[in-house]
């Protein structure tokens, strides 16, 4: 059994690892997911870039990736991870499967939020001669910003949650710390403290998200 003094450095490290994983995953998957989401939205029938081929391919791809149990997914993309990251283990390596999976998840969330945008404003932008990419970047996304911010806040939690599985491949992190040092050791104080730290981080992110969403809504 460990005592707090022994655990403390490990906890700090785990915290750093979580931040590392979450930040990188969000940065990478935030962008890629936005792209996927925008494509899912825009290529659907009647969309700005309507293209049944791209839409169905992407739709199927997202649905292939998302339901794969994460540990199987990590292993399946292992060779690719090795190629890209130079290693398949550790905090850095796990960002690759995390970001990949998160991209697809974010894609769906973004798609959902874009679909609620009033088609009238898209039309107005088209009527001004704006290019499709410009419409997407300067009209579609800003118009959906309120729900999008909440969507990304939602995803933040999902990624934090996902990072708990980083321990599968030696990625560490708070979630893994809570499991390995708390749960598996039946050490409930450690579990509790760790989970509380996670919750505080998430809560802070949510407050920020709510605030930003309210700012973005303009109504």
């Amino acid at each position, binding site marked *: 059994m460990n005592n707090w003094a022994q655990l403390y450095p490990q906890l700090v490290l785990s915290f750093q690892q979580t931040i590392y994983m979450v930040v990188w995953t969000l940065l990478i998957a935030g962008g890629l997911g936005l792209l996927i989401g925008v494509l899912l939205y825009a290529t659907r029938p009647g969309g700005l870039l309507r293209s049944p081929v791209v839409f169905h391919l992407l739709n199927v791809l997202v649905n292939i990736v998302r339901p794969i149990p994460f540990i199987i997914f990590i292993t399946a993309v292992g060779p690719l991870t090795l190629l890209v990251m130079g290693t398949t283990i550790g905090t850095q390596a796990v960002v690759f499967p995390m970001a990949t999976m998160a991209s697809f998840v974010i894609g769906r969330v973004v798609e959902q939020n874009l679909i609620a945008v*009033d088609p009238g404003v898209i039309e107005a932008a088209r009527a001004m001669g704006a290019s499709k990419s410009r419409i997407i970047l300067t009209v579609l996304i800003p118009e959906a910003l309120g729900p999008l911010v909440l969507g990304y806040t939602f995803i933040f939690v999902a990624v934090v949650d996902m990072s708990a599985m980083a321990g599968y491949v030696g990625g560490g992190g708070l979630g893994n710390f809570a499991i390995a040092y708390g749960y598996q050791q039946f050490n409930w104080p450690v579990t509790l403290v760790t989970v509380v730290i996670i919750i505080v981080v998430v809560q802070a992110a949510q407050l920020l998200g709510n605030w930003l969403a309210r700012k973005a809504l303009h109504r």
Partner: protein
Amino acid sequence: MTPVISFRNVSKEFPGAGGSPVRAVDSVDLDVANGEIVGVIGYSGAGKSTLVRLINGLEVPTSGEVVVEGRPLSGMAERDLRALRGRVGMIFQRFNLLSSRTAAGNVAYPLKVAGWPRERRAARVAELLEFVGISEKARQYPAQLSGGQQQRVGIARALATGPAILLADEATSALDPETTKDVLALLKKVNTELGTTVVVITHEMEVVSSLCDSVAVMEGGRVIEHGPVYDVFASPREPATKRFVQSVHGDRPSPETLARLRHSFPGRIVTVPIRDGGTAAGELAGRFAARGVRATIIYGGIGELSEKPFGSLTYELAGADADVDALLAELRSHTPVEEL
């Protein structure tokens, strides 16, 4: 001169509720000359908005061809279509403001699209907001604006880049008469100073009479009448057109009004149209007096249509029946007098 916009047997269908398609625009042939202001009028649902949306390709015709600036829209490359749209300003019936941008941001948007540099943009936006009278609302978001303020943002936005063609779908519907007058003056100014071709959909006949050169009347998707405003209004051919014209200056009294008038004015009541080149109202008074018939104007009016006098006057004629009959017979020889 070749028309700047030309519809060639254009139809547009939408899928309807019960499976049978709705033909919103039906076999329309229409030319709009460069620098012209054309009004599009018609009953609600006649297809006016759809017609106008075909001009900048927001709707694609089911059949037929829309030609703008000499080039057919169908098969136009995306790039070219975009460039064309950049030269076509549009005021939407439902405004379609970007809710995520302020009033100023909305007006600046087309300028950004057109690649104006930042400094020029700011000045232009300020100028436009000033024009439409909402400078002090520049930093408000659409949701914080009144209906008319939103509409004015839409107007300023459509005018921002100084478009070659302006499509205005009920551009003054949410505006009070004063502001409407200002906006119409602005459109006229844009038309005369920049040579902008303007297509206005409107329900306000004053807009047509004070602003437009020509007018197209739509009914059930078809353009049933089209020509210079004075010609169409002075001698409407179709029943629909007639009913629209009735609502402009110098209309005959409605049945209820007529009933009330008869109560106050027991004499015979006639309506005389006043047209440019026809019988001037002034002359009539003289003739009435000469015949010993006392004529009292009880209804109607004379206004201007395309800068020419236009209207009708309703008189009570008091005098011996024979005299009145003789007078009417004489008048009828050159004016379509109508006894009510």
